[in-house]
């Protein structure tokens, strides 16, 4: 193998589903530019998808990519980035998945897979040690993701094959359809499952036994050992090991971060929170802890329900978002129902965040009398009543009756229905908002300006939750207030840093939970830089790596400008969160105030070198990042600000 390719396999797969042509190409020129994961994926979709492309037609391009650290001994080296044009927002999509698929792809000899075109009939892609072929999937079409994985393993007669697939929701082009891997892991946001469905691509299956090597094994192992020791000493990691991300639920409620009844409030009464306490799940339903590939944190678990309505359920799960979306958001406090929702979403291939968002909207409309049983096909929708919600979920995946309206996502559904339902459609850039954001102003800013549309996995800052001290805040970000939840002051600087850093984590192929993205005491940029250099033989500084992170963010921004026309007005929170304060809990009275938001946006754009008036990118900003080709495209589209 090419010495230069340490950490990378040096190869990528390109599949044209229309012509069935499969090519193996060198990945080296790409990875030298954008080392992997989200960076590589965004660069490819920026250059290859025409601005006029319909996300659900053959012009859309999907990139499945690993990072240079994916599959190595670096902790939590399991991530796969999936990038394409987003059917929900019309802009960019990037979704990130753990599990075992991405490392296996590298062991099979590939850094990334680029899928173009549209297959005439259902297929799945089988990748095995440097080769790939398309296989018929007519017999799999219609199946849930769990059965799909099992059938493919049987067909290939190899239980060690790693698979990502779509369920009925993706096949039916539902706007909350996701991609599921290892019967548990999800690339949730951005309806990437629908993109696969539109391509008639049911699954990707991979088996790899050829492995890869790195530039400096001794130094790399030394860095790995140090990193692991730091993780072992960290209190947040200890909690994740015990309870997983659901451990954050009681604290999140204390900080008013739980959407309650479609954001009527952001705080849930104590008795309800206690009934869905992480210990409840652990004591009554948890069978064992589980983990993604090579992750020392093992935040996941296997659950089984022995008795009652959902007896027999057995499934790996789940993250904290299940509780705030399929519990507080629709006001249900019943752990077995939560687990059932989780399992249904896995099998149907539905994203928990997006599907619960549109359902909460429907429940509120029913409460307010804006819709009735006539609209819902006879279903009575009521906060706290999970049975009709489960029925709805099914109807969404299969686009049956009222489900066909909800399958369009909350923005499109409310535009279609009208009747003043738009106010209750809580979305950012057309995509459902995931969580309560009125209390934490920096978290809110990062979430709302996120290029993929309303999500905390870009620039949302975690320093407010961890209450970073003023002194540490000054040292890290040059502002005092990173740890003060309700302060608007200084937050743009912190968001700017988090955006760049999260891009770095996503391009390396690591899980953000093992980094200072999650908690400031965890290892971060310096450690990742050393791992990267030891793996690849490059000699980049932390600053240079952050600059690449900034470029990725700018690529996404430019994609959104060109494809969706997003400008400043699209960087505001949903109206409700600016008009209605939180009604209860420690942050009662908090909301997002327009004048403060205006000011945060001005500062935020200035930090990026973007134009505060329009929110668009500028010549000087892009030149400073060496992004001339991006600049040219924006200029030709008349969406570059010349200054």
């Amino acid at each position, binding site marked *: 193998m090419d010495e230069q390719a340490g950490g990378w396999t040096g190869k990528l797969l390109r599949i044209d589903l229309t012509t069935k042509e499969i090519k193996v190409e060198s990945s080296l020129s790409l990875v030298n530019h954008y080392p992997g994961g989200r960076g590589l994926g965004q660069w490819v979709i920026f250059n290859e998808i025409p601005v006029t492309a319909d996300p659900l037609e053959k012009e859309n391009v999907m990139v499945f990519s690993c990072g240079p650290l994916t599959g*190595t001994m670096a902790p939590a080296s399991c991530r796969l980035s999936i990038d394409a044009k987003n059917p929900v927002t019309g802009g960019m999509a990037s979704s990130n998945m753990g599990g*075992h698929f991405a490392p296996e792809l590298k062991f099979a000899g590939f850094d990334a897979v680029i899928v173009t075109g549209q297959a005439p009939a259902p297929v799945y892609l089988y990748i095995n040690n440097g080769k790939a072929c398309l296989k018929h999937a007519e017999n799999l079409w219609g199946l849930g993701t769990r059965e799909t994985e099992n059938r493919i393993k049987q067909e290939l007669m190899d239980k060690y094959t790693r698979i990502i697939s779509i369920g009925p929701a993706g096949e039916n082009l539902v706007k909350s359809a996701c991609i599921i891997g290892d019967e548990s892991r999800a690339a949730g946001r951005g309806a990437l499952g629908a993109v696969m469905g539109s391509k008639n691509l049911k699954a990707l299956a991979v088996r790899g036994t050829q*492995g890869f090597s790195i530039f400096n094994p001794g130094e790399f192992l030394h860095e790995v050992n140090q990193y692991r020791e730091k993780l072992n000493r960290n209190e947040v990691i200890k909690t994740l090991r015990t309870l997983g991300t659901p451990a954050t639920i009681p604290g999140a409620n204390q900080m008013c971060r739980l959407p309650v009844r479609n954001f009527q409030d952001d705080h849930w009464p104590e008795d309800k929170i206690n009934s869905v306490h992480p210990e409840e799940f652990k004591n009554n339903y948890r069978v*064992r802890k589980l*983990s993604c*590939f*090579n*992750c020392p944190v*093992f935040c996941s678990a*296997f659950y089984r329900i022995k008795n009652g309505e959902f007896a027999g359920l057995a499934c790996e799960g789940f993250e904290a978002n299940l509780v705030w979306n399929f519990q507080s958001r629709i006001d249900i406090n019943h752990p077995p129902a939560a687990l059932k929702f989780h399992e249904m979403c896995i099998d149907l291939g539905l994203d928990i965040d997006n599907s619960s968002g549109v359902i909460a909207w429907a429940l509120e409309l029913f409460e307010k009398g804006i819709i009735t049983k006539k609209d819902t096909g006879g279903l009575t929708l009521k906060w706290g009543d999970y049975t009709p919600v489960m029925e709805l979920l099914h109807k969404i995946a299969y686009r049956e009756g009222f489900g066909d309206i909800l399958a369009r996502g909350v923005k499109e559904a409310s535009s279609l229905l009208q009747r003043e339902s738009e106010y209750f459609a809580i979305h950012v850039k057309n995509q459902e908002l995931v969580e309560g954001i009125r209390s934490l102003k920096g978290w809110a800013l990062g979430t709302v300006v996120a290029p993929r549309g309303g999500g905390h996995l870009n620039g949302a800052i975690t320093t407010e939750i961890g209450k970073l001290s003023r002194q540490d805040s000054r040292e890290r970000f040059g502002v005092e207030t990173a740890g003060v939840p309700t302060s608007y002051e200084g937050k743009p600087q912190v968001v700017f840093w988090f955006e760049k850093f999260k891009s770095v984590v996503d391009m390396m192929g690591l899980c953000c939970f093992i980094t200072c993205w999650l908690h400031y005491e965890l290892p971060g940029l310096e450690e990742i830089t050393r791992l990267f250099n030891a793996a690849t033989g490059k000699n980049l500084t932390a600053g240079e790596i952050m600059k690449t992170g900034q470029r990725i963010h700018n690529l996404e921004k430019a994609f959104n400008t060109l494809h969706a026309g997003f400008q400043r007005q699209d960087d505001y929170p949903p109206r409700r969160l600016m008009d209605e304060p939180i009604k209860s809990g420690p942050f009662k009275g908090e909301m997002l105030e327009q004048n403060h938001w205006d000011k945060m946006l001005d500062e935020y754009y200035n930090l990026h070198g973007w134009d505060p008036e329009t929110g668009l990118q500028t010549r000087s900003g892009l030149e400073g990042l060496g992004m001339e080709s991006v600049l040219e495209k924006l200029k030709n589209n008349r969406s570059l600000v010349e200054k």
Partner: protein
Amino acid sequence: MPRLNYHHNLCTACRSCELACAFINFQEFNPAKAKIKIYLDRSSGSISLCTEENCIYTPDCREFTCTNYCPSGALYTTKEV
């Protein structure tokens, strides 16, 4: 001679042991070459482990590398009695 032991209930199926074993013996990231193999049955949640009989005698692994990289404590060594 110490012995390799496995505490089934603690295992998280992370496969760090496979990765570390292959790396220490072959200097590459390639779990397929590991002398230990972990399999998680996703319908039942049960995990099985198998090791090659002679694994502890490999020249490069006298120290049970896999146990050092097992984060959950599922793999451990005991003195043979």
